[in-house]
């Protein structure tokens, strides 16, 4: 019954994820630094400046955690779980000098990002010279990585709230070229499937769904009259390279992405390499 499958495909294709907007208000932000109060002052100031535009509740408070308040990853988790801030701001390789190498986030961050339910804003290390000049500027060019989970309203809502008034939010979906080519290679060895036709159909289908969802995000944000400009980028490419290219092209000063992966204990497949590679700008990790 091929026709049943044909019509089911038509109807399945007609079911589209629609974006639902939700207002996000921040009541408390925790800034974690491994430095003493005096040494951390400049970093804290930069963070406050960066977050100047986020919507804050009436009882908004800052909580600054200094180096002497924690030692292990468990100490940080206990702190975050106890105080439950709406946002945690910190940097990689806490209590370590490994920040000079582009290989890890450090033990504290590896655990915090997986365990904490609070979003984490990962900032360039205050001692490093690799921070982009615009890293602590008002976020008027924000990019959201939407290719991890389809129809992730939470990701888009957060990205919208972090984008400064009249700033631009880029909703980017990049399908992995290597994975795509691997499947096409398998298809090319199956005589009953036309390879060119399969390549064309799979590529257009892969890109259509995220494009439709992003379209619905743009439409709804526009209807709500929020002062955020939105642009869609949907393509196939080599993940990290493509993101780096787009970040440079649009002079992005904040990247928003998901870190949780329901299927595994480690960080989401694309989130980890991006977090390791992209040290120059703030990364909002949900």
């Amino acid at each position, binding site marked *: *019954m091929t*026709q*049943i499958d044909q*019509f*089911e495909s*038509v*109807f*399945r*294709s*007609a*079911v*589209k*994820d*629609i974006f639902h907007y939700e207002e996000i208000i921040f009541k408390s932000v925790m800034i974690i630094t491994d430095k003493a109060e005096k040494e951390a002052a400049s970093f804290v100031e930069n963070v406050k400046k960066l977050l100047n535009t986020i919507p804050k509740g009436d009882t908004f408070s800052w909580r600054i955690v200094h180096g002497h308040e924690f030692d292990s990853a468990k100490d940080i988790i206990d702190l975050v779980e106890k105080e439950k801030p709406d946002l945690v701001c910190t940097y990689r390789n806490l209590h370590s000098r490994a920040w000079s190498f582009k290989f890890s986030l450090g033990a504290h961050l590896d655990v915090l990002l997986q365990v904490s339910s609070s979003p984490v804003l990962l900032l360039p290390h205050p001692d490093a010279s690799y921070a982009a000049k615009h890293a602590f500027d008002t976020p008027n060019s924000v990019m959201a990585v939407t290719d991890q989970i389809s129809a992730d309203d939470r990701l888009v809502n957060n990205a919208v709230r972090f984008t400064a008034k009249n700033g631009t939010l880029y909703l980017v979906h990049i399908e992995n070229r290597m994975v795509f080519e691997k499947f096409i290679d398998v298809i090319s060895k199956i005589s009953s499937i036309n390879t060119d036709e399969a390549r064309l159909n799979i590529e257009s289908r892969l890109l259509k769904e995220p494009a*439709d969802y992003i379209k619905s995000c743009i439409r709804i944000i526009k209807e709500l009259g929020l002062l955020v400009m939105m642009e869609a980028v949907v393509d196939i490419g080599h993940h990290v390279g493509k993101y780096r290219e787009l970040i440079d092209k649009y002079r992005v000063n904040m990247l928003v992405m998901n870190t949780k992966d329901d299927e595994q204990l480690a960080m989401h497949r694309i989130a980890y390499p991006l977090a390791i590679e992209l040290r120059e700008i703030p990364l909002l990790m949900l």
Partner: protein
Amino acid sequence: MTSESSYIAETAAYAIHHVSAEVTLLFTSLLVALIVSLAFEEKLHAKKSLIVGVFSVVCLLLGAYFNLLPFGELTLPNGHKIEMPVFIPAVDWGVIGIILGSSLFVDVTSKSGLFTWIAIKLTKASKGDPLKLLWYYGLMTVVFSAVLNNVTAMIIVGSLSGVSLKKLKNTDKLLGFLLIEGLLTNIGGLLTLISSVPNIIVGHAAGISFVTFFVKASPYVCVATGLTIFMGAKIFKIKSLVSDEEKHAAEKLVASFDENDGVVSKAFFRFAAFMLVAFITMIAATSVLPLIRNLGMSFVAISFSIVMLIRYKSEVDQFYKAIDWDLIGFFAALFIVINVMEHAQVLGLIGEGIGKIIGETENLMGTGALLISSAVFSSVTDNIPLSAMLAKILTAKQVASSSPLWWAVVFGANLGGNLTPIGSASTLVAVTIIHKYNINLPFAGFVKKALPFAMLHIAIAVVYVLAFL
């Protein structure tokens, strides 16, 4: 009577010659074997066209051996004589033309996204309320069955039911929806002359016009549809949503359907909608339109399909590939088998049997008995050979086109499909979709659930045919 049915009457008259009882019995046993083979089509793992094709070859060989076939030149209406293989005029090309043209037309029209657009619009109009959805899908099944064909209607509505109930997290209600839709395809198949193959064959043989057919069948279809949906909702406990929270959540879920997703070109979409209305109008008016009247419904169906194919002029071969050649081959072979059976006096023998059921003169008991026996027979095997055979027998008996006997055959052949999952192609599609969703419904399970509905349909049909037709 149409030219085809006149031809049938002439050939029936021609066939009256002496055939020994042994030869008639031999061919009768071949007919029984054919019907049994069709009933066990799934077990044989063979397509209908091949099964009947094999029987048609055997019948032709035996027919030639026993000197039953009218070999010789064929005289055309203008007096010209032409040579033609004996099995070519045995096929009712008018019926085949309608089926070929209509299926091509529907196939190309569905590419416009028109049917899926209607289906999704109705889904959204229901706001995700299960009871409303059942009524909308039920009515859509009937209309689609009437306008398209039973199988296409079941595929469209059945596949949408699966997708939308999954989206609404109501898959526990899927069995009820699919079963009711399957039963309704056979009700909707009664609505017009072109809705099902038995209608085309019997209507053609009786000379019933499209409009007459619609006017006479529609009251029954309305009542049976309403009762089926009402009864189905009670039996399968399909109720309306109560709380505002549930209603809001369901409305949000169905809102994610985009009716325009399948519409590739708006211009072609509008053209397809116009052509569909024009097609139905033209088919309905065939018997009264000058020129068209003589060319017949098959001309209308084929010419409309050709006009639609212009949109896909460089890839028409794809549509030719999609034609159900098994069905077309099945018809052609079946007409040949029936023609040989006619020459072997098998139809005469069955006609005598039917004569005993319906009586020497038309009477209520006989008509009712013909309807019920047609329903029972078509529940276990294909209703097409049954209707083709009965149409030929009634034609040979020179039954008037206004006789309720024709309607007994039409109602019996269509409604018998609701008794078992193999009774009609559309109920088979419904069962296939049910199994696709891993719902356990064996043969006996289907009969148990469908029996109350089928009994109701047949009972109302008997009363309706006897009292009003």
